[in-house]
C-alpha cells in the first residue's frame, strides 16, 4: 500500500506565558470581561495562558506588589491607600466608568435624598471612610452626617438587615440592587456620584505592579489588549458574557448574573471614549478628598497611580 504522506509538521506554537489575575471578591459581573477574554481565546492569541483567582484577605494589592500574581482587580480607594503606604501598584484600566455604589433603603422608608438620612440607622462595616463619605454626601444636600446612627453589620448581607436593624446601607447597584429588583423589593438608592464629584471614583480597576510595567511592559500590553477585547464583547453581548461567566463560576446565581450583566453593559464604558480609560482629575480629586479628611497620611502623585498607556490605541 502506498505509504501515507506524513502531514507536514505544524510548527509548534510558541509556549504560552503563564499569567495570573486575582479578583477583588468572588467572581461577579464586574469580571466578565476577563472570563470572556479567556474563553474566547483572546489571551491565547496574545500568547498568554491566564489563570483567574478568587481572593480573600488580603486583597490582591499586596500580592501584586509582592509579585505573587501578575495582575489584580482592585478599586481606587485601595490603590490610593496602597500608594500612600509606598506599595508600588498602578491602575491600568477602570472597569466601570462611574461609581455605581449608593445608599439603599426600602422604598417604604421614603429616603430619597441625602438630607433624609438624618437620624436614620446606617449599617456598615465600621471603616473611617464610611463616616467621611456619608458626611460629604449629606453636606452637599444640606444635611448633617453626624446625625446618622452607625451600626456594624459586618459581613451580613443587605437583605438580612435592611428594614429591620438598619434603615440604609451602602451597596453596589449592579449586584445587590439588581438582586433587589429580582426579588421585587423596591428600593430607593442615593447614588454617590450624583452628589459629590470627588466620590465618582473608579471601582473596580485593574492593577499591576510598577515592576511589571518597567520590566515586562510587553506582557502588560498584551494582557490589556486582550482584556479590552473581552470587556468590549461583554458590552456588546451581555447575555453571551453572562453565560461565559456562569460557565466559569457555576456556583453563582444565574438569574442574578444575567440581570446584572445587562444592567452593567451600559455602565462599563458609559460616556468614555473607550473602555477602561481613566482621567487624572478623578484620581487627583479623590486622593485630595481623602487627604483633606485625614483618610490618607500623605498625598499621592495622581499620575503615577494610573496609566492609560496599555489600553489598545483608539
Amino acid at each position: 500500500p502506498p505509504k501515507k504522506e506524513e502531514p507536514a509538521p505544524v510548527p509548534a506554537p510558541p509556549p504560552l506565558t503563564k499569567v495570573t489575575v486575582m479578583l477583588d471578591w468572588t467572581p461577579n459581573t464586574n469580571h466578565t470581561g476577563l472570563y470572556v477574554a479567556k474563553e474566547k481565546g483572546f489571551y491565547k492569541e496574545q500568547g498568554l495562558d491566564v489563570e483567574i483567582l478568587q481572593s480573600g484577605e488580603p486583597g490582591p494589592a499586596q500580592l501584586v506588589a509582592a509579585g505573587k500574581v501578575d495582575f489584580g482587580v482592585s478599586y481606587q480607594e485601595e490603590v490610593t491607600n496602597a500608594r500612600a503606604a509606598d506599595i508600588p501598584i498602578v491602575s491600568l484600566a477602570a472597569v466601570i466608568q462611574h461609581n455605581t455604589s449608593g445608599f439603599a433603603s426600602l422604598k417604604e422608608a421614603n429616603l430619597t435624598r441625602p438630607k433624609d438620612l438624618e437620624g436614620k440607622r446606617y449599617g456598615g462595616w465600621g471603616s473611617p471612610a464610611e463616616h467621611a463619605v456619608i458626611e460629604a454626601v449629606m453636606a452637599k444636600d444640606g444635611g448633617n452626617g453626624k446625625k446618622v446612627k452607625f451600626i456594624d453589620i459586618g459581613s451580613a448581607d443587605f437583605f438580612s438587615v435592611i428594614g429591620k436593624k438598619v434603615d440604609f446601607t451602602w451597596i453596589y447597584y449592579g449586584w445587590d440592587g439588581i438582586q433587589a429588583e429580582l426579588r421585587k423589593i423596591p428600593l430607593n438608592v442615593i447614588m454617590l456620584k450624583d452628589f459629590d464629584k470627588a466620590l465618582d471614583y473608579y471601582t473596580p480597576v485593574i492593577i499591576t505592579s510598577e515592576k511589571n510595567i518597567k520590566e515586562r511592559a510587553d506582557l502588560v500590553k498584551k494582557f490589556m489588549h486582550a482584556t479590552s477585547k473581552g470587556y468590549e464583547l461583554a458590552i456588546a453581548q451581555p447575555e453571551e458574557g453572562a453565560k461565559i461567566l456562569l460557565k466559569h463560576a457555576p456556583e453563582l446565581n444565574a438569574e442574578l448574573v444575567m440581570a446584572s450583566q445587562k444592567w452593567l453593559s451600559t455602565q462599563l464604558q458609559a460616556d468614555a471614549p473607550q473602555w477602561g480609560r481613566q482621567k487624572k482629575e478623578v484620581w487627583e480629586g479623590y486622593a485630595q478628598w481623602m487627604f483633606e479628611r485625614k483618610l490618607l497620611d500623605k498625598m499621592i502623585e495622581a499620575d503615577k497611580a494610573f496609566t492609560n498607556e496599555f489600553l489598545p490605541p483608539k
Partner: protein
Amino acid sequence: MKRYVSSFLAFLILLLLWEFSVEIFQIEKFILPAPSLVAGALIASFPLLLEHSLQTAVEALLGFGLAVIMGTCLALAMGLLPWVKRTVYPLIVVSQTIPIMAVAPLLIIWFGYDILPKVLVVALVCFFPITVSTVEGLDHIDQDMVKLLLTMGATPGQILRLVKFPGALPSFFAGLKISATYSIMGAVIGEWLGGSKGLGIYMTRSMHSFLTERVFASIVAITAMSLILVGIIEIIARLTMPWLYQKISWQQDEKV
C-alpha cells in the same frame, strides 16, 4: 453503631424542629433555609459540590499527611531529647494563641496562591494535636519497660522500636483523630484566602450570590468529609492496635 441511635434520633428531631420553625415563623430562606431546601440544594448541585469537595479533600489529605510527618518528627525529638522539649514545647503552646487567619495572608504572600498555602494551613491546624498527643504518649511510657530492655542489653534503637513506638501509638492515634476532625475545616479556611476551586470557594461564592441554602449544603459536605476521615483513621487504629480493642472477658474468670 447501635450506640449512636439516640444521637441520631436527637439529630432528626432537631432537623424537624428547624424545618417547622422555618415554616411557622416564616423565616426568609436567605436568613435560615429549611433543611429540606438545603437537602434540595445538596442534590441539585451535587456534581458541582463533588468537584469542589475533591479539591478540598486533596488539600486536606496533603496537609494532614504533612502534619503527621512534622508532628511525629517533632514529637519524637521532644519525647527523646528532654532539652528539645524544654525549649520547643512552650513555644508551640504559645503559638496556639495566634489566630491562623492572621498568619494565613503571609502564607499566600510567601508561597503563592497555589495548593501549597492551603496545605500549609491544614498542616498548621492539624499539627498541634498530633504533636501534643504523641509527646504525651511518649511521656507516659512505663519507664520500667525501658529499664527491662536495658537489662537485656537493648540498644537505643531497639528500645525505640520495641517499646517507645508501640507504647505511644494509642496517644498518637487519639491525636490523629482530633486532627482529622479539623483538617477539612483547615482546608476551607485556606481556600478563603484565595483560589479557584474547593468548598471554601463554593461557599463564599454561594454566600455572595445570596444562596444561603448552598452555604449550608457545603457545611454538610464539610462535616460528612470530616466524619469519613475520622472513620478511616479509627479503622486504621483498630487494625494497627488489635490489642487495644481485644475483647476483655471477665478477668476473674480466667483463673490460674
